[in-house]
């Protein structure tokens, strides 16, 4: 799409948005090419690893952290405070926005520079700050482009993956006056120059967190561009914002998760930068912020935590491999989902944040092919969780997801009850399959959406049940004939 069009997306319009994306050759090509590349890179980088053992380790580290979550959060808070990091708790996105805005206002901030943070996207932090007269500028290159284009990220790791070189050139030209070019280095250099000035002028830097280490009070930040380091080191105040599930127990838990994260996400052995933030600037140090804040956001996470099955959702380390490998995401792209987190992880996470009423089409937007669960570095059983949310949506779950039961309709319940009755009455089942075969000619050649793209399957004239009966009868006769033959001889 052109740089001047502003489109908004909502999960309520998944079908329409999917229709539009499927009909957009540029979107199709951009995602297919990018996802093929990411899948190949991941496969190659893990080729000489015992991946199953590493995934098992990663899953266990995350399970252990979640098992001790309340305790670890308290230890994280205490150790961060001992390091001089100020810790804030936010029950929801609005509260987190308010906390961050108040810190900014206390420092008279007019401009903040942001490192990449999906949690800040989740709470629409930029819009909130803008309303308070504080300009928030994204410094991750992809986020910067998306912000220039007045869009939202289409991927959690590569926010501008839906754009190709020409589109990016056009956006930079229209929004920043950069000369049109197809040379990526030229564009990157231009963006770098534009951002460098803003780093120097920013009053506050805001970042996310990849791993928060409870035993040491350390905030780990994984990135490639150096903007994360600039965001957290240059402005006088650094605010880190993260979901409460990002805590791990030990520092030694970080290397395996980091090894899994970078390889699963972008196929890299390591990222260019790995930041460990453990305090504000100490006396005698020459750089670093004077204040460091950590804002821990719940936003529905503790409600997910209450359910021993859905809890697995919180293992996620946000690598994006599930979307890279998802045949649905690959075809419709990230915006189609209309949610902060798209793809399989979004479909199991967003119903908790937005309710099933708004997100009811997401858990079904999967063929349950299992590719997401197969590549998940912490072994989240994503397909099982999709099925669990389908249960919740039709009112046959445990009822602890907002909007549970919203998809339950009399018509569909009647259909499944009918299926149940038929499939538990074998005699009726056999005669109805026989009837279907006999009435073959009367079968509609149009079966709704199926036959727009495929021919309709034709019921066989004789069912397998009947064929087996005939077959057994023949064999029985043959055996009898053999027996009598034997007797005669």
């Amino acid at each position, binding site marked *: 799409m052109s740089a001047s069009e502003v489109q908004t997306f909502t999960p309520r319009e998944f079908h329409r948005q999917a229709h539009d994306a499927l009909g957009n050759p540029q979107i199709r090509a951009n995602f297919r090419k990018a996802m093929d590349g990411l899948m190949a890179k991941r496969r190659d980088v893990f080729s000489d690893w015992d991946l199953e053992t590493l995934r098992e380790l990663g899953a266990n580290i995350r399970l252990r952290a979640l098992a001790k979550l309340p305790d670890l959060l308290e230890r994280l808070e205490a150790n961060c405070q001992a390091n001089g990091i100020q810790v804030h708790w936010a029950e929801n996105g609005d509260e987190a926005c308010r906390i961050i805005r108040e810190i900014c206002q206390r420092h008279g901030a007019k401009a903040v520079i942001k490192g990449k943070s999906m949690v800040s996207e989740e709470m629409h932090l930029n819009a909130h700050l803008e309303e308070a007269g504080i300009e928030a500028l994204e410094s991750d290159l992809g986020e910067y482009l998306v912000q220039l284009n007045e869009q939202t990220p289409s991927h959690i790791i590569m926010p501008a993956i839906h754009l190709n070189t020409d589109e990016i050139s056009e956006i930079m030209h229209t929004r920043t006056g950069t000369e049109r070019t197809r040379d990526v280095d030229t564009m990157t250099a231009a963006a770098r120059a534009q951002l460098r000035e803003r780093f120097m002028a920013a009053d506050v830097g805001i970042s996310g967190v990849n791993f928060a280490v409870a035993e040491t009070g350390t905030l780990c930040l994984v990135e490639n561009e150096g903007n994360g380091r600039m965001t957290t080191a240059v402005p006088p105040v650094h605010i880190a914002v993260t979901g409460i599930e990002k805590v791990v127990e030990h520092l030694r838990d970080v290397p395996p998760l980091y090894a899994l994260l970078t390889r699963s996400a972008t196929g890299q052995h390591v990222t260019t930068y790995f930041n460990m933030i453990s305090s504000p600037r100490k006396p005698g140090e020459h750089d670093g912020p004077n204040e460091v804040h950590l804002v821990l956001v719940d936003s529905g996470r503790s409600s997910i935590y209450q359910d021993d099955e859905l809890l697995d959702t919180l293992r996620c380390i946000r690598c994006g491999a599930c979307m890279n490998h998802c045949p649905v995401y690959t075809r419709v792209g990230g915006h189609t989902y209309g949610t902060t987190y798209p793809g399989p992880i979004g479909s199991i996470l967003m119903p908790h944040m937005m309710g099933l009423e708004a997100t009811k089409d997401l858990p079904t937007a999967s063929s349950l092919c299992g590719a997401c669960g197969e590549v998940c570095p912490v072994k989240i059983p994503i397909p099982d969780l999709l099925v669990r949310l389908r249960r919740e949506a039709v009112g046959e779950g445990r009822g602890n997801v907002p909007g549970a039961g919203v998809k339950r309709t009399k018509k569909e319940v009647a259909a499944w009850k009918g299926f149940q009755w038929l499939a538990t009455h074998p005699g009726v089942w056999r005669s109805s399959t026989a009837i279907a075969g006999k009435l073959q000619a009367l079968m509609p050649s149009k079966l*709704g*959406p199926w036959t727009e*793209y495929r*021919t309709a399957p034709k019921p066989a004239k004789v069912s397998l049940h009947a064929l087996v009966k005939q077959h057994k009868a023949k064999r029985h006769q043959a055996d009898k004939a053999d027996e009598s033959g034997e007797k005669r001889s």
Partner: protein
Amino acid sequence: MTPVKLYPPKPEKVYFFGTCLIDLFYPEAGMDGIRLLEREGIEVVYPQAQTCCGQPAYTSGYHDEARAVAAAQLDLFPEPWPIVVPSGSCGGMMRTHYPQLFAGTEHEARANEVAGRIYELTEFLLHVCQLRLEDRGQPEKVAMHTSCSARREMGLGETGPALLARMGQVELVEQARATECCGFGGTFAVRHPEVSAAMVEDKTQAIEATGARRFVTSDCGCLMNIAGRFEHQGKAVSGEHIASYLWRRTS
């Protein structure tokens, strides 16, 4: 990861769970599976009271209904014989999801016991029967689409191709993105028809690009989807259940 499975020696008898799709649309594929087993000297018992494994209701979230249907199938296999299923999708449902579905219910122990005896047909032919195949067909190229449930849920990405490799006149060609879903996904094809259509379109293009004029699959859901797409476009690529293909060329 699928745990290492120790396969039993070839038994005298097996149960055959034909699946509802085969019962209704592809009964010959079921018969060919039975014939392949009988040729190995195995008596095949087909319980006439079988209907459906319950998967359509299960994946749609209607677990009470799925459980009732599945419970009716649990009664069909009283003897300790292996249960052979000519579908990775239904096999995966019975092996993986029956234990989940009946956990904490009165049927739990029986569901686990039945699940432990479930074998997908190609798995059984390869690992239990150690099937030998004498290919009497003409030389030809064939593509195979292994269903996602056979590949990922049951860990059987290689059993179909391994059987085809025993066919002297068959050249197995691999389509691009062979491990990607064909877009069937049961009710997915109905709930998200356009996305499903885009997926099957890519799958048919990839198969066609191999130059093979025939593809085989071990799941009739995928077969109905992929072959239905080829037929809709009037393409001269035909599909077949792998059981029929193996039987036809070796009988």
